[in-house]
């Protein structure tokens, strides 16, 4: 069955009344929750995961994809009007878009971000449609050895390469891996690190960890440290529509942003942070108005927003074809699959084609709904920004505790939620990234399983990881991404000291 046929049957699934409705509800909820300040896409999908639990897998995942997309759209609105980025990928948008809003150009900033996200999301979904069958062909050749190598690459990029400090990134990753150890060993069925507590036999639930870190931890942090500051919401003055000039300055950045975002989303490079910054730098270099950058240049919103959304779709590629989450949000989406006993990967394209292709088709539809929902209704979303902070966080915690308690109606999960929340608070306070915790706890058990399978095949010979060509290549890339930045930093430092002025660490 070729791709187009598969996609068409996917549309047949996605356009059924029930799925269309679920998709619509998903993007609406996703936008509404994603708009709330302090709620990024990862928390949005974690909070709304329980809401999808009662539907059949296809419908639930279509709703879930809508939530993810909606959260991305909603987050941009908050960044532009409030200058509080929900996650690192929207820092650039927050900076440049907020400057535009300050100059009374909030409308065009929101418009270029929404239309750019639509363009990027649609192109990226097209790419996903036609590239993933190829990726599946490659993935089918993967054995345990190759899977393990790819997971090692993901571990290293998510923790050690990105972010301010490799030491803190790795500490966070190992914390996640430790959490992942808790529960029954998948191969021998032995209990590990359960400390005799029966509730721990199933391991820690991703929803509890994600909601604990992002909702409880963030609430504690904001209340303790940031509550004295007041946010200023930029007013929506004038027209929401972009002028001819705005269009002319936006369409190329949209396309360039998409071109940067999608490939970065596909590789395990920690999501949208790098491509958004690259896109910003590119637009600044290519712009005829470089002097406007930092003061509200429309290219500086259009490009990074497109990159951000394209990267979000790109992330789904390793997730769907390999079962490999590369961001915190992707880790939670993987948990949503696992909720239904589904393990994303090449086999899922064979066993559940209507689910996979229905999901992909729903992304095209979701993008259209989002555009229709966001531009005309932006005034409504902006109202959500005016919810007073005490009520906002109180509301978030009601949903957070409900999500944790609803899993199995046990107070123990609420105790865990609070404990992990305190951990998240400490991590936030001391600038330890939290995404590696989630990736580590999800991928840890999977990587152990693959490692042990690989050694069972090689009869205990460890060299199998470097003698198999694919695995050797991936591990070589892993080594490169660790070493190259270090060498580069060394060269720069040496050059700086050669010129005569010491670079300040």
């Amino acid at each position, binding site marked *: 069955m070729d791709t187009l046929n598969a996609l068409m049957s996917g549309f047949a699934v996605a356009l059924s009344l029930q799925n269309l409705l679920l998709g619509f509800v998903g993007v609406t909820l996703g936008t509404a929750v994603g708009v709330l300040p302090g709620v990024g896409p990862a928390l949005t999908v974690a909070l709304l995961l*329980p*809401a999808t*639990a*009662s539907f059949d897998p296809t419908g639930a995942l279509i709703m879930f994809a809508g939530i993810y997309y909606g959260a991305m759209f909603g987050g941009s609105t908050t960044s532009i009007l409030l200058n509080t980025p929900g996650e690192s990928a929207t820092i650039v948008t927050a900076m440049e878009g907020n400057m535009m809003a300050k100059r009374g150009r909030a409308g065009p900033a929101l418009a270029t971000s929404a239309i750019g996200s639509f363009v990027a999301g649609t192109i990226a979904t097209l790419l996903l449609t036609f590239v993933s069958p190829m990726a599946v062909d490659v993935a089918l050749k993967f054995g345990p050895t190759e899977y393990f190598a790819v997971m090692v690459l993901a571990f290293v990029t998510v923790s050690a390469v990105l972010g*301010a*400090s490799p*030491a*803190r990134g*790795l*500490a966070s990753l*190992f*914390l996640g*891996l*430790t959490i992942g*150890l808790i529960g029954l060993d998948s*191969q*021998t069925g*032995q209990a*590990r*690190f359960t400390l005799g507590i029966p509730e721990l036999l199933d391991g820690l639930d991703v929803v509890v960890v994600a909601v604990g870190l992002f909702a*409880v931890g963030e*609430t*504690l942090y904001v*209340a*303790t*440290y*940031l*509550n*004295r500051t007041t946010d200023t919401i930029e007013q929506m003055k004038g027209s929401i529509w972009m002028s001819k000039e705005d269009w002319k300055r936006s369409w190329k950045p949209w396309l360039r942003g998409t071109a940067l975002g999608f490939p970065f989303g596909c590789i395990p490079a920690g999501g949208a942070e790098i491509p958004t910054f690259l896109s910003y730098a590119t637009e600044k270099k290519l712009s005829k108005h470089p002097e406007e950058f930092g003061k509200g240049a429309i290219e500086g919103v259009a490009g990074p927003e497109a990159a951000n959304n394209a990267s979000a779709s790109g992330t789904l590629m390793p997730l769907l074809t390999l079962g490999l989450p590369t961001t915190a949000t992707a880790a939670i989406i993987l948990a949503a699959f696992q909720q239904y006993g589904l393990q994303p990967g090449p086999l899922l394209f064979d066993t559940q084609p209507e689910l996979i292709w229905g999901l992909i088709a729903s992304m095209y539809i979701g993008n259209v709904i989002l555009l229709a929902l966001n531009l005309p209704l932006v005034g409504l979303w902006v109202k959500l920004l005016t919810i*007073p*902070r*005490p009520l906002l*966080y*109180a*509301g978030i*915690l*009601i*949903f957070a*505790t*409900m999500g944790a*308690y*609803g899993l199995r*109606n046990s*107070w123990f999960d*609420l*105790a865990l*939620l*609070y404990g992990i929340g*305190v951990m998240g608070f*400490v991590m936030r*306070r*001391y*600038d*330890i990234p939290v995404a590696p915790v989630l990736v580590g706890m999800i991928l840890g058990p999977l990587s152990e399983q693959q*490692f*042990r399978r690989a*050694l*069972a095949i090689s*009869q*205990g010979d460890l060299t199998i990881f470097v003698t198999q060509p694919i695995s050797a290549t991936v591990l070589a890339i892993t080594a490169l991404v660790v070493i190259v930045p270090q060498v580069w930093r060394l060269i720069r430092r040496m050059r700086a000291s050669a010129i005569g002025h010491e670079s300040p660490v």
Partner: protein
Amino acid sequence: MSTHARIHPGELLISLALLALGSFVVLETQGISETQGYSQVGPRLFPYLIGTGLTLCGAWLGWQALTGGWRNVPLDDGTHAAPDRMAFVIISAGVLLHMVLIGWAGFILASTLLFVLIARGFGSTKPVRNLIIAAVLSAVVFFLFTQGLGLTLPAGPFGGA
């Protein structure tokens, strides 16, 4: 701002906690009985590796804390100078009370109290308004999720269940 000249007790404490947790993982691993099954590697190898890794990270961060502080920490000293400890306590109390109450008082009552306490933690001075919003929101969420979405939540004394 040469705050990094002195040792941050917090940074050192976290490093030591990571070190302790890592060592605990390594020690606890010895209690897992080694059955290999089909694989050449039993259930002990990864815990050993992960425990060791965590210990090393703790040591690394501890060393950084002692030699000028953790690297590349954003200069948030302004925000971190005056923590609102009361807010932390009230919110913690809210979450923990909710945990204790939800089983027998039911979702609506427990969540209402949670909402009021969190809002108080954030310095809201309108308890009556908050109480009304809290009760309405909790009730709406309860009926939406139990009736509409099939989630099981405890009804408590008013639920009649």
